């Protein structure tokens, strides 16, 4: 193998391992503080400052925005889950903003017309971020959050989130997200991925390095928008850009790991692909827009570790992919040449394959294999821990298996497209 590629391979493996060790160390350092957070949420901490103990009249006012665009199928369930929130009725407003739906969404939500907690608004279509800005303009509550019409909240979610605002400088709190009833392989893959996300988000929050305040049920102090300004188009990932903007201004974003939000994951590969192209592309382009944060020590772990590593790993994955594809093509070519001169005899071919591949002696027990196993172990740990962290009671671990087996096969699809889109857009901007 080429020495330059070896060097690249080793440095990549080193960095990935470094990041994993860093996450685990952070977890070990903060285990006791996570435990005390849990106790406080259950109202048994020394200060017992759970919202349960605060009289209803003293609880802050909250607006939850439901931006809808052609979502007649799920909007009702979303609104009902919000009405079911364990929170004083006079302190909670549900603001449905119809962003110019072409279907019957507006007709569907009319049944909530006149409901004391629900405000219905309709505007011309302008994209999700305009619907959010419309709501921010019209809301008067202390806190504001959003819930997409494909998501539902746990009834205690708000009570788990609001206590985090007691810390000084905190302007946003993210929830834990889970896939709603994963019932096919794709759903299971996403389920494990989201649980891994619960773990990473918690650790990133501890590190002050969250780079996304997810659309579903991240709650903000409303007044912060007066300072940082409204949502932007931000390459269709306005929730990512907002987090980076808050980080740039050194605001704090916390994570309420017990606040569960259920979301309906894409049910076909194509829809998942579309969603991820948007997410990944949005990440790359927003990170490029905020490149002044990268490797800038003023932005702590986010600037120094998380952003550069995330960018690097996207690039490295593509290089790996190219390398693996080249190897695959070379091997197939070799095999083709061999069959051409020897003919195909499955018994003898299998015998030869087993002789040179299954015997440990020939097994390429190289560094990548050892490091790969370490990475797999850490991923399994993180998924299980994420599940435990959010208090999810599911005793099905098949999702981890599907995730480990299939995720690396499908994720290159959107990585390639996202990088390609980024390059193309950048080029276009030059003219």
């Amino acid at each position: 193998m080429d020495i330059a590629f070896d060097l690249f391979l080793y440095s990549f493996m080193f960095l990935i391992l470094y990041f994993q060790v860093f996450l685990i160390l952070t977890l070990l350092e903060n285990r006791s503080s996570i435990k005390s957070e849990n106790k406080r949420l259950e109202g048994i901490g020394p200060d017992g400052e759970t919202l349960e103990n605060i009289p209803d009249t003293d609880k802050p006012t909250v607006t939850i925005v439901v931006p809808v665009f052609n979502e007649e199928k799920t909007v009702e369930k979303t609104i009902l889950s919000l009405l079911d929130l364990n929170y004083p009725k006079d302190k909670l407003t549900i603001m449905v903003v119809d962003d110019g739906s072409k279907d019957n969404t507006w007709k569907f939500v009319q049944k909530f017309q006149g409901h004391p907690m629900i405000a219905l608004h309709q505007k011309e279509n302008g994209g999700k971020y305009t619907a959010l800005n419309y709501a921010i303009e019209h809301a008067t509550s202390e806190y504001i959050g959003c819930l997409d019409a494909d998501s539902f909240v746990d009834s205690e979610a708000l009570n788990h989130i609001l206590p985090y605002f007691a810390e000084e400088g905190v302007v946003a709190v993210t929830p834990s997200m889970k896939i709603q009833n994963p019932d096919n392989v794709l759903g299971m893959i996403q389920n494990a991925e989201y649980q891994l996300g619960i773990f990473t988000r918690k650790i990133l929050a501890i590190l002050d390095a969250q780079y996304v305040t997810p659309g579903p049920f991240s709650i903000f102090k409303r007044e912060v928008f007066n300072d940082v300004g409204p949502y932007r188009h931000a390459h269709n990932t306005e929730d990512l850009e907002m987090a980076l903007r808050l980080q740039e201004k050194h605001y704090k974003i916390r994570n309420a790991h017990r606040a569960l939000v259920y979301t309906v994951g894409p049910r076909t590969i194509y829809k998942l692909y579309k969603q991820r192209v948007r997410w990944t592309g949005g990440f790359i382009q927003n990170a490029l827009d905020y490149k002044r944060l990268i490797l800038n020590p003023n932005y702590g772990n986010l600037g120094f570790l998380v952003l550069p590593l995330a960018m690097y790993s996207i690039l490295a994955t593509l290089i790996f992919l190219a390398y693996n594809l080249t190897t695959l093509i070379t091997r197939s070519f070799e095999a083709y040449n061999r069959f051409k001169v020897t003919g195909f005899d499955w018994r003898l071919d299998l015998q030869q394959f087993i002789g040179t591949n299954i015997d440990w002696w020939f097994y390429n027990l190289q560094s990548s294999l050892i490091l790969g196993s370490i990475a797999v172990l850490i991923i399994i740990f993180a998924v299980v821990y994420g599940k435990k962290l959010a208090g999810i009671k599911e005793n099905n671990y098949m999702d981890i298996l599907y995730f480990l087996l299939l995720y690396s096969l499908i994720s290159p699809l959107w990585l390639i497209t996202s990088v390609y889109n980024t390059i193309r857009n950048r080029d276009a901007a030059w003219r």
Partner: protein
Amino acid sequence: MNTRQSIDRNKYVMTFMITAIIFGLMLYINGILDQKRYEDVKSIQDQISLDLLSSETQFNLLKETSCKSIDDSVLSKELNSLATKLSYLEANQSESNQGEIAYLKKYYSLLQVKDWILMRQLAEKCKDQKVISVLYFYGDKEDCSECEDMSYVLTRLRQQYPELRIYSFDTKLDLGALNTLKTIFGIESTKLPALVYNGQSNIGFKSIDEIKELIPDLKQIDIENAKKKELEEMSKDSENKASTSTGATSAKPRN
């Protein structure tokens, strides 16, 4: 309110150290495994050289005894597996180990030459010993574009005919005995691949069928195998017939 985020330098250093330790450990394990592979090959070679010595001794004794007392053990069966392992080592070892690999290869080539000589003597003395020996000379991809295809064909033939012994020699190796062998059969590094059978050297790629033309013994084996198969099928058929006829007789009483 808006304080700058800080970096915990100690943690970054600590993480670096832990990562470095894991990495170092991994490289260390890798080194041990490579060493183990190398030693494994060496021990196989020692085994072969012991086998050969034993064969030579047996052969010397043979002058006083008959062919029948020679058992299969004279044919060192390890040679083939050694060849596969050596080519793996050659392809996967780091640069620093290439010297050791070259040494192993030379040793292996010598063992092959010795085995070949022994086989020839055996064949002369004991006519019913069925061993077909072929010498195969190959070179690098740059010098010999057909060598790869040739080795595929030979590997396949070796699988199909256990009686076939192929001795393969890398013409690049600088080894006295190998050079002599090359001179005997007029092998040139520019005319590869070369197959030597019955003292005749054949240059260029040969397909499976062409090799069978070259080595009529292989065809003979094919014919014998076909006969055997036919006999087996015939005996199977007659068994089947016997069982169906008994089935028919047992069904009769019902009528």
